């Protein structure tokens, strides 16, 4: 039996804001809808930016992708600020307990030195890749168009800072908080041949002007390959070679990736469905950056796991891209 509490019902004058009603009809709206749609300014910007006088402050022309409605990029996770931070807070709570479990029991001492060395050389430097991803997603958030995609890019940008910090903490666990492992990992990032392709890729992407292209190069291509290569395959390799406890420390990023890929794939799919022109352009960007990424990641994949690793990752990325309609 359910007991219904009687409350005073007042008839509202309207169900939601007029711009929400124009999009979704005269009915109560969700918090995602009210927080997202048509919130960004559209016209009458007064002054051209001193730093880009060829554009308006909010301008659709900062990418070659063309959309009739930039609010088509609905986030499948329906993240607005409140739902976003609450989701991440839950995940960080799990991560925190994993990290303290690992540290409290000093699980590092059970992991062979060679494996620890391998993690410092091949996993920890990824914090710099996350840093590049932070910049690239912030770039799209600041210069992109329409809150639907720009807010998701902001959440992603901040997530990447969070990922970089979790990866850094792995270094700090291994070096007993001296920072030596981080310094060593940075030297690999700067000088070791195994990383130079990836670093050049990151630097090149940070300089890309078209924000949507930068999103493709980072979130679609590079992240797609690294996720498969590092957080699935290398994770498995570590598990098979006495480093299974590292999984506790990368679980956050693993889950984060799974969740984020849903949004990344949705963005690609929506842009592809919009027009053939978008599809061709995206195809061109993906092929171009994928070529560079494969070249850059080849030595890393070889050292991490072995000869077939990169191909497995490429196949996985292609399978996702087929589902978005970008590849056949």
């Amino acid at each position, binding site marked *: 039996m359910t007991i219904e509490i009687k409350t005073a019902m*007042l008839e509202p004058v309207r169900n939601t804001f007029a711009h929400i009603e124009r999009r979704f009809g005269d009915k109560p709206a969700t918090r995602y809808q009210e927080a997202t749609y048509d919130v960004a300014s559209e016209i009458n910007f007064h002054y051209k930016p001193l730093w880009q006088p060829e554009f308006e402050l909010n301008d659709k022309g900062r990418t070659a992708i063309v959309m009739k409605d930039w609010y088509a990029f609905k986030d499948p996770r329906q993240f*607005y600020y409140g739902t976003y931070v609450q989701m991440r807070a839950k995940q960080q709570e799990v991560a925190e307990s994993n990290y303290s479990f690992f540290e409290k029991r000093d699980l590092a001492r059970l992991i062979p030195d060679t494996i620890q060395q391998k993690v410092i050389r091949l996993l920890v430097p990824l914090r710099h890749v996350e840093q590049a991803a932070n910049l690239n997603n*912030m770039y799209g958030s600041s210069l992109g168009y329409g809150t639907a995609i*720009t807010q998701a890019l902001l959440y992603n940008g901040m997530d990447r800072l969070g990922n970089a910090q979790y990866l850094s903490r792995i270094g700090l666990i291994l070096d007993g908080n001296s920072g030596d492992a981080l310094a060593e990992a940075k030297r690999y990032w700067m000088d070791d041949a195994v990383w130079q392709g990836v670093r050049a890729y990151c630097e090149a992407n940070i300089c890309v002007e078209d924000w949507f292209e930068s999103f493709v190069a980072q979130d679609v291509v590079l992240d797609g390959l690294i996720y498969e290569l590092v957080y699935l395959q290398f994770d498995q390799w570590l598990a098979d070679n006495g480093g299974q406890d590292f999984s506790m420390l990368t679980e956050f990023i693993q889950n984060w990736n799974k969740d984020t890929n849903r949004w990344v794939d949705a963005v690609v799919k929506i842009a592809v469905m919009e027009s053939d022109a978008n599809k061709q352009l995206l195809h061109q960007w993906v092929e171009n950056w994928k070529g560079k990424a494969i070249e850059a990641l080849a030595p890393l994949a070889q050292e991490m796991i072995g000869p077939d690793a990169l191909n497995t990752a490429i196949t996985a990325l292609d399978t996702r891209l087929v589902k978005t309609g970008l590849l056949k």
Partner: protein
Amino acid sequence: MAAKKLNIKDKYRLLTRDLDWDFSYEDRKQAFPYEEFEGIKITDWNKWEDPFRLTMDSYWKYQAEKEKKLYAILDAFSQNNGHLNVVDPRYVNAVKIFLTGVSPLEYQAYQGFAHVGRQFGGVGARVACQMQSLDELRHVQTQIHAMSHYNKFFDGFQEFSHMHDRVWYLSVPRSFFCDARSAGPFEFMIAIGFSFEYVLTNLLFVPFMSGAAYNGDMATVTFGFSAQSDEARHMTLGLEVIKFLLEQHEDNVPIVQKWIDKWFWRGTRLLTIVAMMMDYMLPNKVMSWKEAWEVYFEEAGGALFKDLARYGIRMPKYAETIEKEKEHISHQAWWTFYTHGHAAGFHTWIPSDEELDWLSAQYPDTFDKYYRPLWDMAKEMEAKGERFYTSGLPQLCQTCQIPMLFTEMDNPNQNSMRDTVYQGERYHFCSDGCCDIFNDEPEKFVQAWLPVHQIFQGNCGGPDVGDILKDYYKMNIGHDNMDIKGSPDEARWNKWKGIA
């Protein structure tokens, strides 16, 4: 290995500052191209002191706690028809101004901080700006959610976003933020991070939120409390920015001073609407605008500028004029809105006799002498059934875009007008402050999208003002605008409260 304990500063450095690297494959200038054109000299980003050392995991944790509490209260507010607890339906018009005029600024702040949070070459400054960007997005979204319930029961909220881009008085706050965002990254930080967030925010945020607390608006005041700790972080960032710029190079001092002069003047103009809200729109008064100005600007700001004097920074230009203005601007603004009440997206009214007496007591030197007679006249006309609305459209200041409603401060019977000629065209201003700002960057300010000019040029539909309000502004005529007396808002309120 026995782990040593890391202090917060070192930990934060390793987890944030150390993530950056020197480029070898591309030119870093191409990645951060906007750092030099303003003439600011940064010799060493490493000297940046992180104003708050918050890692993302803690950020998520603290912010999620606050969000959980906030939304629980917002849910309860709407479930229990919280709008019935406001003291008087007139109050809700202050909330309308907030949603149409202020919340979209939070959005622009999100965009502006995202931009500098990408473009600064120093990772410490960048990350601090990114967090503020995320906070600002929080503020616009939580404000929309907090006010969503009011939208269901009162007029004037429903087109807040459409109106913000178009309506004449909303172009005042809007152009302020467009000006800051279109500036270079360092000017943006002095404009918004320092002048606005550090010095003037107390005069925007505190009056609105205290106004909500005094007038039974639980939704807005809860939002206000929830945003307070974010604002505290933003203030420390604003202060760090100015100290950092001044310490980096002595050549930065005159540039920063010029920006301070500009943004304080623009800020005080923007706050006119807050002044009017405090003195006229809150049925339960918190304090007078004059008192708020004395407490939050003259005392707090004075101490700050004393502290900055060691860098060679002086009080903002026209501080003496600003000091005199506190006696006048709220009265001049509300009178302007009262007489243009048909073209406003909220309701206006004549202050009650009690309120007029309160104003006399708060402004003993000016109110009875200059402003009470206007209200006596308005009351007489209203009693005769001739509620006064002006038929003309106001001339706007080219810089602040406020109608030319201000007077000379030494002669409140004389309208304050300035003008200047640029490339053969004459431009008009409300004050020396606004005229100076124009003269320093005429090529920027000639671009201003002045709503009244645009109407006369036929860019906003028409030809009648009524058509423009209805079609271009999407105002619901007879519902959103005009006097509160006889409005649907009032009729509904009386019905809810059983008032005949």
